């Protein structure tokens, strides 16, 4: 910048006095228009929504004081265990912590990265989830509790794997692209990925967005019945939806017989999706939770049908706030990848070579990940150590849990599930309306009671 000012010249993208950037046509907007004109195809990328949205940051806990008493932070017990699938399944999932690993496919992620997720989940006593590409032996072998996804594509779908799974997740949609199917570009369709998915190597694979053998909630009920019959009613069956018409979707999924509902807010990550989809479809996680909880409560099934929430979980504060709003557990995806090394400054030089930078890297679709996580290139994948990566994710999961317990104890709760909406206030009117908790310092919940 000093060079620019001293010489009186300006290079592209550098501000100097007198230059005014358009709010409407900011640098990113201009760059995207120019890219679209140059390449003639929509922008496909990984990661999740990057726009600013009302989120858990807009909520605060009311710690205990005179009217409530807290638990000792380091001494008194604050339990974190969760049981998923108590409604119909013979073998519910018993988790030690309320944080699970979300579905991410082998294909989107390298085999060592999938292994690391399994190792981490197993180390801390939680579950991990397959993805749109089938179950790998590495993943099954390293995951004590593995949730097997049944997706529209049914890539690699196998009754043997259904029986090997600890739970089944029927994926209707995901937060990054509700109404859209999976996508895996040709760079990542290696021999092994192609074989698992019965596809030609190197093609741009576009998964179906609708299931091939059921349409609508009445069919879904019959489909769930079939999955239960195939697995002799042993496995909990989850239904995952991207957050949109959440109240109705949750009620219909429950009516269809789900044991567990997974609601993925629009901040949920993706390995490859059109940017326009990521940023413009779905509703924020913050408002999806109360809608889901309301749906369950009206059916008299809140806590009997468990609710898992995902989409933008980063800290123990996010976990605690999601639980306080009524979730039974949360899932992490993007944060787990970051924990294992995605976007690490360690790879800054390599990121720069591919036109990105640590902290900004979102080209997970391209398969050139220097961290060896979102790639199918054997050389790149060899950079990733699944033991170390697993250890990092396990550490991170422990921190999330400790932070959640810290906040729960501060609110006087001996189990993280005892957190409740009454423990929360909102910093903004928007967050108050969405989360259905009062604006801080008031009794006002916009949309539910009176005016300020």
């Amino acid at each position: 910048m000093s060079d620019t000012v001293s010489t009186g010249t300006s290079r592209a993208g550098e501000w100097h006095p007198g230059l005014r950037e358009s709010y409407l046509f900011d640098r990113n907007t201009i760059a995207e228009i120019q890219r679209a004109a140059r390449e003639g195809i929509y922008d496909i990328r990984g990661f999740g929504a990057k726009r600013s949205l009302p989120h858990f940051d807009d909520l605060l806990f009311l710690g205990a004081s005179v009217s409530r008493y807290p638990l000792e932070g380091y001494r008194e017990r604050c339990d974190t265990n969760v049981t998923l699938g108590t409604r119909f399944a013979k073998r519910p999932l018993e988790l030690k912590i309320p944080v699970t690993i979300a579905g991410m496919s082998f294909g989107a992620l390298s085999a060592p990265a999938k292994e690391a997720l399994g190792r981490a989940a197993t180390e801390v006593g939680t579950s991990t989830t397959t993805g749109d590409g089938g179950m790998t032996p590495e993943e099954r072998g390293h995951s004590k509790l593995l949730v097997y996804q049944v997706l529209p594509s049914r890539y690699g779908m196998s009754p043997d794997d259904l029986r090997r799974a600890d739970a089944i997740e029927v994926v209707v949609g995901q937060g990054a692209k509700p109404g859209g199917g999976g996508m895996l570009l040709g760079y990542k369709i290696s021999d092994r990925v192609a074989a698992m998915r019965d596809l030609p190597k190197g093609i741009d694979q576009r998964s179906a967005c609708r299931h091939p053998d059921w349409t609508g909630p009445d069919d879904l009920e019959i489909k769930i019945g079939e999955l239960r019959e195939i697995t002799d009613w042993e496995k909990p069956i989850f239904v995952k939806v991207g957050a949109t018409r959440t109240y109705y979707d949750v009620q219909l999924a429950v009516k269809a017989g789900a044991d567990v509902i997974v609601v993925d807010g629009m901040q949920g990550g993706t390995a490859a999706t059109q940017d326009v989809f990521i940023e413009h479809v779905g509703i924020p996680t913050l408002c999806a939770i109360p809608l889901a909880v309301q749906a369950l409560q009206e059916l008299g099934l809140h806590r009997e049908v468990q609710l898992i929430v995902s989409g933008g979980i980063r800290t123990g504060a996010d976990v605690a706030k999601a639980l306080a709003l009524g979730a039974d557990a949360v899932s992490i995806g993007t944060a787990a990848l970051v924990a294992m090394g995605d976007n690490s400054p360690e790879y800054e030089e390599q990121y720069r070579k591919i036109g990105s930078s640590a902290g900004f890297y979102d080209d997970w679709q391209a398969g050139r990940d220097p961290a060896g996580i979102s790639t199918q290139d054997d050389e790149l994948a060899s950079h990733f150590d699944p033991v170390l990566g697993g250890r990092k994710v396990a550490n991170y999961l422990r921190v999330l849990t400790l932070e959640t317990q810290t906040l729960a104890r501060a609110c006087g709760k001996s189990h993280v599930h005892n957190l409740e909406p009454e423990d929360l206030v909102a910093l903004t009117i928007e967050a108050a309306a969405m989360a259905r908790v009062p604006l801080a310092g008031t009794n006002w919940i916009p949309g539910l009671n009176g005016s300020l």
Partner: protein
Amino acid sequence: MVTGTEPVTEVVDLALTPLRELNQRLHDVATAGEGPRHWRVVNPRGAHAVACGLDAELDVEIDGHVGYYCAGMNQLATVRVRGNAGTGLAENMMSGLVVVDGSASQSAGATGRGGLLVVRGDAAARCGISMKGVDIVVRGSVGHLSAFMAQTGCLVVCGDAGDALGDSIYEARLYVRGTVAGLGADCIEKEMREEHVAQVRDLLARAEVDDVDPADFRRYGSARQLYTFKIDNAGAY
């Protein structure tokens, strides 16, 4: 209980026996590695998920109509339906043989990964959708969007095919003897060479369809123009 060596048929009446019990008993044969090999199911009365998830060399005959997902995810077993079948017949079947004497509703053989599915009547919409290696022979006709996103395997249609056949098809082979109402995106007619006639002949023989000539079929498959994103193809979707 009879042993696997005795040629005795175990009869289960679904008017008296819960479906859960039937499926559990069928599964137990695979789990235990022993038990009756021949089964006859009577009074299915349109029940869903009859004989799904089988994983043993069983011979199951179902006397009557079945609902959704009959023989779903079948492995190794032979399942014969003496009636019609509802949605998702033999969905994701892995191996074995599934035969329906009547007609099948939509999504017959959906995502099937192996084995042979035979429908002696007609199959409705989306027959063979996302098929991944299964072979399907339909003596009658198939409805619209059949073989949608079909990946591998063969679909043989002795009658006609509805609109948008093979839409967004990958490497599956489609053989149709009658008329095709319309081809879906990236699906084209291809030359019917001797090797293809031989393949149809073999599939018809395995399906015990002996009243049609393999040389009467036309072949359809992927033009492979939509395998990668190209802006010039945007109008094809």
